[in-house]
């Protein structure tokens, strides 16, 4: 079992997300993360799906995804050289004084931004790969994390290669 990253190019139509999500739940595949948004191709969207499984399982996932009429292309980019990013917003307990100073210091080490300051808390914005976000979360836990949201991974293949509909 290891995480596989799939690029899935889909028609930008109502119901596509539920078709994809339904396929995963119905067949018992586990989605680690799924992000979707419009992309460079008109009328299409690109999903970045991280799915946990052994190679045979992921092979089935890909084949089943390919059967959906609204899916134009499925590319497994796990073994490719990619850049990956995730965005997270973290609301941390940080009373004015020593603990707030510490939190701000940690933030700067991780190149996170403080994007809101309240009476007893601050909100950090951080981008990076999943490990980095996990690490930051771990460090901040001691101060008290009030709320934490993350987008899930998006990824692109490095260089001139791509997972466009034709290539």
């Amino acid at each position: 079992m290891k995480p596989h990253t799939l690029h899935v190019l889909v028609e930008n139509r109502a119901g596509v997300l539920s078709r994809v999500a339904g396929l995963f739940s119905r067949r018992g595949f586990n989605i680690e993360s799924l992000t979707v948004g419009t992309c460079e191709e008109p009328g299409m969207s690109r999903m970045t799906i991280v799915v946990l499984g052994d190679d045979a399982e992921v092979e089935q996932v890909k084949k089943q995804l390919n059967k959906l009429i609204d899916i134009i292309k499925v590319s497994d980019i796990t073994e490719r050289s990619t850049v990956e990013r995730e965005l997270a917003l973290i609301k941390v307990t940080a009373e004015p004084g020593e603990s707030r100073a510490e939190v701000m210091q940690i933030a700067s080490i991780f190149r996170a931004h403080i994007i809101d300051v309240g009476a007893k808390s601050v909100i950090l914005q951080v981008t990076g790969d999943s490990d980095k976000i996990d690490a930051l979360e771990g460090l901040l836990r001691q101060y008290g994390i009030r709320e934490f949201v993350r987008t899930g991974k998006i990824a692109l293949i490095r260089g001139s290669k791509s997972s466009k509909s034709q290539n």
Partner: protein
Amino acid sequence: MKTGAKLLIEGLQREGVETIFGYPGGSVLPVYDELYDAPVRHVLVRHEQAAAHAADGYARASGRVGVCLATSGPGACNLVTGIATAYMDSVPLVAITGQVPTSMLGNDAFQESDITGITMPVTKHNYLVKRAEDLPQTVRDAFFIAGTGRQGPVLIDIPKDVMTAQLTEAPPVGSHRLRGYQPTYEGHALQIEKAVALIGEAERPLLYVGGGVIASGASEEVRRLAELMVIPVTTTLMGLGALSCDHPLNLGMIGMHGTEAANYAVTECDLLIAVGVRFDDRVTGKLDAFAPNARIIHIDIDPAEIGKNKPADIPIVGDARRILEAITHRLAGQDGRDGWLERVHRWKASAAAHSDGEDTLSPAYILQEMSDLLGSSGIIVSEVGQNQMWAAQHYCFRRPRTWISSGGLGTMGYGFPAAIGAHFARPEETVVDVAGDGSIQMNIQELGTVAQYRIPVKIVILNNMYLGMVRQWQELFYDRRYSYTELPPVDFVGIGRAYGVDGIRVEDRQDVRPALQAAFESDGPFVLDFRIDREANVFPMVPAGAAINEMIGRRQA
């Protein structure tokens, strides 16, 4: 000016649709109004489930796309079992449903249901059409999707205001515009070469063919390959009729209730040529023990089926007919496989030696008599249960598309309405629904439909006053505790008569043939109520999860 409803009907005509099966309601009234004088025949069923099964039976008997129609909410929901049945058996079907007006979508309006959401897992694709302009193209795309690649059901949900919308100009219909849908038909040349080599080298090859062979019209190619290379053939339940039952290389059906010859052969073969099959658990039994010593060539149009349950050494994606043709074309022939054939035939002969030899009203006897009387002129449709397995085992299927049965979903109540559909597809053939007393009661109201249109479907009820197949499992695996599987006697002939359908009850063996003759000679629908041995079982049987060669019981005929 043209309404959406009119565009829909024109779309159906453009696809060559002649017959549809349906049931009206408020949300499809505009379509029914168009149907009033459209050159498309509409058959009014008594329950929407039957409309879906009838469209399915039509499709299986004809090879064309079947069409059913229902209203929103309860009507649409009643189609679901029929759609799921078609989905599991890859049957090309277009289901059209009415929907509440677009302005009320999502409001829990009267008779609203999210039918595209409900059917997502059991359709190949589905549509909610929000603009009348989109109707013609949607119909075109839906038929294309349903009838190509791995075939399957497609649903089109049409809100009432889309049906009544007036367009001054009919929108143009292009060829299908589906960027994400490009089925593969030609097999990969290199893989075909490899398959040819393996077939040449094999000492104990076996052809294992299923519904995909029927769907792609590859029966002739199966026969040619089998004869050229002297390869015995076994078929799945869905593949019956792909090779004539009396062909010397045919070992009969494989699987849980398959023949000894087929189940032993697959255990001992060194090459399994799997064509249009999906290694269903009712076929394979315990997966590790299925074809344990064989290399596997797997030919299927759906890449997702290859390697799903059993890894293939040579996967070939594409149309079975074209691939088999390409393979056979490259093979020079084989002198004989004496040892292998001898072994296979010995299994076949030893099974044939057990005949019922009694004078009871056994299901085997009834089916053999039927087979004898109909020769190759019948289409046998079945319900689900022992009746289905007896029909599969004892009727001699000689041609493709003469056996119609719910294999994947195993839907009781399927047979009778599917038989109605089959009749409309092939009116010249005698269509028989082989039923159990349980199953027939699941859609018995369709007696009204066959009476109204005088549809000459013959219903052969193998009446054991039990939910027989479940009772058999209770007998074998639950210590004969027949929990809620006994059914009280029913006067099926009387029920038929109430609808205006003829019938005969048969209690003795010597009355079987005359009763069948009377039914087949009648030009209308007919009910035959055979009171069979109450505790007759289907044998051989591979218990669920056991290895395929671990059969229990003895074939009864």
